């Protein structure tokens, strides 16, 4: 190993940038160790003890940045130092080499991109309402990714958007597909005649992907933000999005996805459904199917069933077939469970999710099979985990919850926390199954297996009898190559299911088998 280093004089980068750069170069081929620190006297002493000091550092001062690498040879060292140089030179250069077009205001942005009629806003919540108002004033549709927007502001902005004939998706809207263009966290789905309205981001992703993978296609996928169907907002945008799809010639079938709406909102949805001839599927997660049917929609018991129904409808096939398909599917899952149950050690399930809706849906499915499930987002307040989020009994954790994401990237983007947790759970002899989701698509981790596979290998080495069950939300057209992801996971001993529903169902069967 050789040690090489460079000094950057009088440059300042925030701590997160510095540490990310250090991590990136440490992971490079041929690099044994690396460090990026300010040139204080104390750090120079530590670098010496760590074998990362080079003579050029002697004259560096507190305000200099010292970068050093331990590499197998000079070529590897040079490549690593060049990478640092590039990474620090201009953080605003995008991956394809183009410099970001920086604008200072919405007005500038609109002037820069002639014809734009939709704005995606992702800024601190406290300022988001003001920016959204400006967008409406300019006649723009809005997708508001930001959360922490006051509910009064949400209602006011949505009423105004409705009055102006504009869409207002959000706040806290993470997924939409408009005219085939995925926005924020969304997938490369086939275009078709199924329109989606969702107050749930990963719910929209899961349904749109299953539809696409089954050969169907999406006309539009409109997010509304999770609060839209609550009493305070009154479903303003959910209803507007439904109307937009009813009026859209390309859309022949509509799927509605959300947690159970407020009663009054459900009445309004029912009234709206009664005004269209287009078939509507309702997936109000956890809602009584009779309530959904009463609203005039075909009730779906899972995101997968909603997708199946929609595809059948869009292809003009009888929806009754879906029940037969699900029946066969249940038998298959039961057989799989019989196959995997005998070798399982441990008693409890640990679920580690990046998608909030997927975590919620899994709890609902598992409740039928294994009873109480503890969570940081439980179905009942009785089943809250303690603040340290340690696994207790059967546990499902939404790692996209604020407690895990403050100051850190979302687990769909950064797998490090989940990988760490996988290894921790594997060390617990009571753990029988680790259930997790992998959500692909735009915005998600570009290469999730780089982080996931080493963690799974380490966990497997420690607990060879542990079962890993996972669902992959994505399409073959997604940038991450879904098939390759699935194959690699299977090669690593993971049982990969094609939907969140099926993964949870299989898990429920196995836990039931081993505990009965």
């Amino acid at each position, binding site marked *: 190993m050789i040690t090489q280093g460079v000094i950057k004089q009088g440059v300042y980068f925030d701590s997160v940038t510095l540490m990310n750069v250090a991590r990136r170069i440490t992971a490079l081929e041929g690099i044994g160790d690396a460090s990026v620190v300010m040139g204080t006297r*104390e750090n120079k002493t530590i670098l010496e003890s760590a074998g990362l000091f080079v003579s050029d550092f002697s004259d560096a001062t507190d305000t200099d940045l010292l970068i050093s690498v331990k590499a197998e040879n000079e070529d590897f060292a040079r490549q690593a130092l060049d990478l640092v140089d590039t990474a620090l030179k201009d953080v605003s250069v995008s991956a394809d080499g183009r410099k970001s077009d920086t604008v200072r205001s919405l007005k500038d942005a609109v002037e820069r991109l002639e014809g734009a009629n939709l704005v995606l806003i992702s800024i601190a919540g406290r300022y988001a309402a*003001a920016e959204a108002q400006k967008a409406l004033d300019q006649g723009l549709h809005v997708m508001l990714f930001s959360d922490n927007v006051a509910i009064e502001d949400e209602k006011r902005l949505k009423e105004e958007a409705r009055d102006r004939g504009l869409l207002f998706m959000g706040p806290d809207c993470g997924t939409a597909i408009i005219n085939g263009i995925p926005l924020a966290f969304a997938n490369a789905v086939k275009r078709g005649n199924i329109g989606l309205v969702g107050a749930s981001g990963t719910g929209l992703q899961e349904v749109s992907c299953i539809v696409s993978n089954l050969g169907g296609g999406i006309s539009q996928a409109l997010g509304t933000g999770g609060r839209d169907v609550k009493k305070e907002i009154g479903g303003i945008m959910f209803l507007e999005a439904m109307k937009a799809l009813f009026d859209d010639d390309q859309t022949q079938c509509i799927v509605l996805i959300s947690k159970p709406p407020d009663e009054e909102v459900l009445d309004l949805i029912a009234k709206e459904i009664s005004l269209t001839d287009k078939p509507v599927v309702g997936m109000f997660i956890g809602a009584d199917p009779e309530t959904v049917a009463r609203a005039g929609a075909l009730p779906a018991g899972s995101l997968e069933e909603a997708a199946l129904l929609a595809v059948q409808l869009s292809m003009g096939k009888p929806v009754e077939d879906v029940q037969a398909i699900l029946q066969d599917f249940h038998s298959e899952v039961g057989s799989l469970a019989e196959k995997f149950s005998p070798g399982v050690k441990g008693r409890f399930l640990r679920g580690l999710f990046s998608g909030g809706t997927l975590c919620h849906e899994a709890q609902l499915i598992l409740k039928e099979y294994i009873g109480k499930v503890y969570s940081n987002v439980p179905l009942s307040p009785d089943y809250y985990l303690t603040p340290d989020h340690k696994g207790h009994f059967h546990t499902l954790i939404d790692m996209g919850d604020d407690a895990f994401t403050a*100051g850190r990237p979302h687990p769909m983007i950064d797998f490090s926390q989940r990988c760490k947790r996988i290894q921790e759970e594997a060390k617990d002899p009571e753990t029988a199954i680790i259930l997790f989701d992998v959500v692909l698509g735009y915005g998600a981790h570009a290469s999730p297996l780089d982080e996931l596979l080493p963690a799974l290998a380490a966990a497997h080495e420690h607990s060879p009898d542990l079962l890993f069950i996972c669902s992959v939300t994505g399409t073959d057209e997604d940038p991450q190559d879904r098939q390759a992801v699935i194959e690699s996971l299977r090669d690593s001993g993971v049982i990969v299911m094609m939907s969140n529903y099926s993964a949870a169902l299989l898990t429920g069967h196995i836990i039931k088998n081993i505990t009965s």
Partner: protein
Amino acid sequence: MIERVVFGDVLPTGVFKLHSRFRRVSNFASVDGDMVFVTDDPMLMAGHAIQLSQNIFREAEALTITEEFVSTGGRLIHRKDHPVYSSCVSFAGIDFNDFETRLNQLPADYGHLFPEDSFLYVLDPERCRLISGAFDQQLARRILDGAELLLAGQVENGVSLLSGSGKGLTPSGDDFVAGLLYAMHYLGAKNRLCMDKRARQLFDISKGNNLLVNSFLWHAMNHNYFQTLKNFVYSCTRSGCVSQALIALLALGATSGADLLSGYIFGIQHRIGI
């Protein structure tokens, strides 16, 4: 149009030139080494800061600050027209035992929220096993040595080992020392002692050539609290939601918030400086 402007309560006056610029913060320094910063994030607000909801100073290369106004590039904002951020924290009337119980419980309850490479291992040595990389391992050894010296009453020697050590724009050791300085404010209030002289000694040992670090420590020595830290302290002294305030504090920098908090808890647990 300026929508909202807030001035810090210990804003220095003078002519300040751009020192460094980050996504949410622009730092300005005077020839005397005083620093001020401009931010659009109220959670980052501090006594020596100006908060603007629209950062009209984003492109500014210099600021002039007087008792009456702040100006740059022909723009002028009268200070009297705008609210003032108070960087003071008062411990009057709090239940000290309850406060310390809450603090001491944090590493056990919320240790998983701290970044792996933060100085939490000073409070929870088990975490040392998670550390990889030669620099980090040597750093950990140095920090634990420094902590031992602090515990042995050799505060100056301990702080000498800690300050300037570590990763980040403000080295982690300095964040930890800032935590110790804030802890001394609490300990002074609890024990009705004036800790100013002791704090000054620690500051003098710690300060170096990095203006950002010096400014950070200076304000810690003078118990000027930034908003996120203030929220955290109040959440522990009152029946507030500790977890939310903690999460916000830990989100500062890569490990800065966590390192500061580790120093704060360590300082209070071990009555550093008394």
